[in-house]
């Protein structure tokens, strides 16, 4: 997840679109691939996709903002997603979200000042038997409570996990 210069971003997008002969019907897939590489959808990315697909920027933004998956701010080094599924709700998932907001001093969709963590919400992850659940980067952590949460954050803060 490195943020490239506008030129580099443009080259990547041009190559992607021409190499895979993608057209407007693949806008969502292009956005997914670009976000996977750069971590978020920047203004440069939107204008570059718009140029290469010959589709107005506003339409690209319209699509990107419609889908929950796309981010428009630079994410932190680690992304924490709190599951908002029913089972997690019934088993106290909201409290986990609140503790995180307090511990990290950020709201949902924001990144900590030191750029270490971003906090997001995620629709049901489908591992309800482990509720309440959160996802740290790609790893699912189940049966969360405050003490496990503090331990988990501590590990990352101390740099034991990267």
């Amino acid at each position, binding site marked *: 997840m490195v943020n490239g210069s506008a030129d580099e971003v443009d080259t990547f997008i041009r190559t992607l679109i021409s190499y895979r002969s993608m057209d407007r019907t693949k806008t969502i897939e292009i956005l997914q691939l670009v976000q996977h590489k750069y971590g978020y959808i920047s203004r440069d990315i939107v204008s570059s996709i718009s140029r290469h697909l010959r589709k107005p920027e506003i339409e690209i933004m319209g699509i990107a903002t419609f889908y929950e998956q796309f981010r428009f701010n630079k994410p932190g080094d680690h992304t924490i997603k709190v599951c908002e599924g029913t*089972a997690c709700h019934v*088993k106290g998932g909201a409290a986990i979200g609140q503790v995180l907001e307090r511990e990290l001093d950020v709201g949902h969709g924001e990144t900590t000042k030191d750029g270490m963590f971003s906090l997001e919400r995620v629709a049901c992850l*489908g591992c309800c038997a482990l509720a309440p659940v959160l996802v740290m980067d790609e790893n699912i952590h189940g049966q969360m409570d405050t003490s496990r949460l503090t331990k988990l954050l501590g590990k990352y803060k101390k740099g034991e996990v990267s």
Partner: protein
Amino acid sequence: MATATNMESKITLLVCQGTGCVSSRSPEIREALEAAVEAHGLSDIVDVNFTGCHGFCEQGPLVVVEPEGIFYAHVKLEDAEEIVKEHLKEGNPVERLFYKDPMTEEAISYYRDIPFYKHQKRIVLRNCGHINPERIEEYLAVDGYKALEKALSEMTPDDVIEEVLRSGLRGRGGAGFPTGMKWRFCRQAKGDPKYLICNADEGDPGAFMDRSTLEGDPHGVLEGMVIAAYAIGASHGYIYVRAEYPLAVSRFRMAMESAKENNFLGDNILGTDFSFDIEVLEGAGAFVCGEETALMISLMGKRGIPRPRPPFPAVSGVWDKPTNINNVKSFASVPVIINRGAEWFSSIGSEKSKGTAVFALTGKIANSGLVEVPMGTPLREIIFNIGGGIPEHKKFKAVQTGGPSGGCLPGEKLDLPANYEALGEAGSIMGSGGMVVMDEDTCVVDIARYFLNFTQAESCGKCTPCRDGTRVMLELLTNITAGRGKEDDIETLKDLAIVIKDSSLCGLGQTAPNPVLTTIRYFRDEYETHIVEKRCPSRACMELVNYEIDGDECIGCTLCAKNCPVDAIAGERKEAHIISRDLCIKCGICHTVCPRKVQAVKKVDSFPQGGEGS
């Protein structure tokens, strides 16, 4: 229980690698088992293999020893050595890792004796947990792709449609439209090419049936899709999977690759002139895309906003061509219907709902997991016999079926058969299979608010009643749960609900008010208590409770003070603690951590402005 791997009396250790077990480190456990088997020189007689989800995620990580059928639950990394040494080498199964029945505390050693499995009938989930989903050989060994061979060599496309029609299979995505009829419309529609879509955009919170099916038996779904494509005459297919399900996506891609190598997919399948290929598309996180017209529009790269029907997808769908779209579980049922015949399938279930239903049983229930039962099985049996009832001897309050589109049913409805008709009459829906159990500590008004919060956020915004109506309903519900409800709020909610249901274009808006309507219908008194007395009878609505420590019961263990995120609890070790109301954010953590034997942290009514005692 026969598995594909227990050839020649070899012992096989099956380690579950569904999402739940993976997150509890099951891949490392598998490696540890492999290492232990090697170290004890048992490699010649013991295989270590992995499977998809067993459905009993609550008990994970799971290890099953075949062919005996010994079932180990909650296996930890350090247990690997003991399992191999004690059980495999010495022949003494490790009793402490057996499943314990939550009601009787009895340890049960065999998979087949565990009540959770004993009362199930698994058709869709037939292979989940028994075969390695990443190896086509194992699927072939359990008669995989036999149905496809049969369809292509012995049946015309119309025969296939006829068979599915006679089986009585209805759409497992929730609407329950007869699958065979859908196929026939699409086959008869003019237009070329025709498309086939598998809807794996499982968006209902609290539902994970499609995910587990794809993770545990991707070939089963794939085979069903190829048979359906043959029946309707489709040459190109899509599977639209949620991006939140990476493991399901990768297993399905793997299955496609090996199916191609074996000529079950691609050009001239099994040497016939029938060719069919599939493209995997990852949804980008919009609940409304589970609706078929929205899904198709999203698939074409646009904002997934539903459109009116007709024209139905069967006539004009993707790229304006005839398109057939079915749910994961519908496809997974097809190979079994072709193999065993329509009569066999339709002998299972109830009069108008044939076959089995898969539920994701979660919430306040002892055995969370995936449950597959004949259609029409009473809710009571699912919740109490299979699900093991409510933990900690709490009282059952309600069961929510059908996710945000469904309803909450009270105890007196527990004897209803779980099928499309009965649940519909009670005001809920079968839906795609989410089943969330609530106990006396769950507030139904809060649950209604939770679901409406979800649908309100996911409304695509096309229809005003859905976009703005759900917002107003949510505000009313938020006020009620915060003790600001007014007397006529219930009637306003009902009026709004009816307008939204009647005037929304797609299923999202048409069903969004269901959780509110059913909770008002069955639990009106709870709404009234919130509104009139400003009190939450379940003490779940945060703004209506305070936390207090009972000084006589507190043993001064300091656990609550240590865990309080805002340092609102004061007190010396071995002395009674006290919570500062000014600092308390009511997160409830003190209540959770207070030792069960002590239970000194109490929830009390807070009676905000205007309520009793204020």
